[in-house]
């Protein structure tokens, strides 16, 4: 992992609408954006960022790159990520929503073989408050501190970051593993990273219905995490079988999932409770639970 202000960052799809919007915001936050890549736009400059047609053209000019943040259209994302891996980049943030899951399967096979970290897709990426922004987290909700915030959604994460900030609880990192069914990095991976991170004292895990990431996380926390963890799960009242907006936030009852009730909010909350992890029933209860975990005075107690 290398998420420091001096690590070199590339933006793929820098000439696409979302990329063009966020490239200057990342730069303004202090991220060391060394180059952008957009085929057909090579030779141009955008907010002082030099644009190349291909990553391998950029490298001789800007040197080895640590992280790429990808904003290309969904059907071009697999190729962009493979281009990055072929160019030796080992940290990939996939912001784009709507990447076909089988493209992700191909990408993850390659990422595993090359030990590449893939965050996302359908993710606002990573923010280290006050230091570096690798994605689209809005800066105004975050403040530096000791809470490691990991989640599967965008705006809900900002909401919770804001609740924490307003309660005087800054964040060591905000990271979203992505709202799709098939995503790269997992909750357990980030739990391990934050457990080892010296700036993180407590972890807030924001889950949602669909899949079994939260169940896996609960199990992993019980087994391997020493720092306190607070959990929240969105979607208790979500109707079954309905796509909520996240491709991953859906409860399926198909035989293919082997009939089990994994994926419901109850299943996830029960898993956390069994692992003795405090679960906030409402987002605004999270700061108090964090304070309790840190043995700080709480609003109500």
């Amino acid at each position, binding site marked *: 992992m290398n998420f420091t202000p001096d690590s070199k960052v590339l933006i793929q799809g820098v000439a696409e609408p*979302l990329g063009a919007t966020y490239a200057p915001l990342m730069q303004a936050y202090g991220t060391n954006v060394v180059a952008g890549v957009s085929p057909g736009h090579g030779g141009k400059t955008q907010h002082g960022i030099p644009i190349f047609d291909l990553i391998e053209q950029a490298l001789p000019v800007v040197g080895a790159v640590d992280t790429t943040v990808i904003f290309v*259209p969904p059907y071009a994302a697999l190729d962009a990520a493979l281009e990055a891996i072929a160019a030796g980049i080992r940290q990939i943030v996939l912001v784009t929503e709507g990447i076909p899951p089988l493209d992700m399967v191909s990408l993850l096979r390659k990422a595993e073989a090359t030990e590449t970290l893939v965050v996302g897709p359908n993710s606002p990426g990573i923010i280290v408050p006050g230091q570096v922004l690798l994605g689209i987290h809005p800066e105004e909700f975050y403040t530096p501190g000791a809470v490691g915030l990991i989640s599967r959604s965008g705006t809900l994460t900002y909401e919770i970051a804001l609740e924490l900030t307003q309660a005087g609880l800054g964040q060591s990192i905000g990271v979203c593993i992505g709202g799709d069914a*098939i995503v790269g990095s997992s909750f357990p991976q980030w739990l391990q990273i934050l457990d080892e991170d010296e700036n993180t004292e407590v972890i807030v895990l924001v889950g949602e219905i669909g899949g079994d990431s939260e169940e896996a996380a609960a199990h992993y926390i019980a087994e391997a995490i020493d720092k306190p963890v607070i959990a929240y799960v*969105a979607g208790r009242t979500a109707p079954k079988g309905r796509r*909520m907006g996240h491709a991953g*936030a859906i409860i399926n009852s198909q035989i293919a999932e*082997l*009939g089990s009730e994994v994926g419901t909010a109850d299943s996830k909350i029960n898993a956390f409770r069994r692992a003795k992890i405090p679960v906030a029933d409402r987002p605004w209860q999270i700061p108090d639970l964090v304070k309790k975990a840190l043995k700080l005075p709480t609003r109500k107690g």
Partner: protein
Amino acid sequence: MDLLEYQAKELFREMGIPVLPSQRIDRPKDLKGLTIPYPVVLKSQVYIGGRGRVGGVRFVENTIDAVAAAQTIFNLSIMGEYPKVLLAEAKYNADREFYLAVVLNRSICRPVLLGSQHGGIDVQTALEQMQHVVVDQDFSPFYARRLALKMGLQGSLIESVSTILEKMYQLFVQKDLDLVEINPLGISASGEVMALDGKITVNDDALARHPTLTALVARSDPGQPGHLADAPVAIESDGQIGILCNGAGLTMATMDAIAQAGGKPAVFLNIGGEMQWDASPTALRDRLEHGLEQMIQTKQVRVLLINLVSGLVPCDEIAAVITAYLTNRIRKPRSINEISPESLIAHTLRFPQLVVRLVGRDREAARSRLETVQVPLIDSLEDAVTQTVMLARATVRNS
């Protein structure tokens, strides 16, 4: 999105998976032009499972019986769903029935092959006997043979079943599917295999790159479950609250909080997160305008909670959309003959009370702007939820 059995079988046929001769029946009288020899099976084409147990599958021996049976099936609701189409298919004498599927497993981020020697309608037995093989690297037919052996097959059935699995996997990858299922796969006394029923779930995100699937789906029912919600989604028929948020997680969290506070959501609408590659910096404004229009048209909504967390667009600009909408909507200039006293009353009555909570930059400007249309800007989600539920209760009391 699911395909109907007859659509799945069209894809099976193209891929070389054996299916019986069959014919699509749009009206009972189509059966007079049947080219398949009797006896024939008529099957209700619905998205929901379990049609066999409630009379959605019938064997017929001649045209008269077939037309009568078709009429019955067209008028038979399967768990609330009426078929638009039937499938007439040749009868098959299966000696045994297997279950086979290829499905994407999200926990391990890999496709998985599933199989059981106990397929058919007894799902519980199939489940208990289910074997699976994870396709961890690029697929090769040995994965299919591995499943066939785990299923306990021997001799020539190993090859014939694994060949079907191979073709199912090819279909799965070529068409970017979430699920390909054959249940049952009929095994004849002589060891021939035949896909007797099939289910395919296409992936919404991949659909646009498969013109043939897009064409198939265009013929399908857009109201079926799993369809992407770009319109308000109904929750409780006696609810009074509408919820409009940006982002799936925020929408769910808001809806949960409303319910936990004793409110009854009628509909919700997620106007979209921020990860769309082609979104302009002001996309949220356009989506809000469109979303407001949709929510207002949902008569049941008496209180509308707007909860937006905005990174790019300042709150003041969001507030401007809301105030402009309110102003336009209420004072929309109309030609004289359009204005009837009834329509004016109905219009006024129907307009829901707004609870607006915005987070982002320029909140004070937003607050002032919203005050011009008598809408207070609420600061915390907790207060917005409390306020919404309180107003909804008042509405119920007043009605």
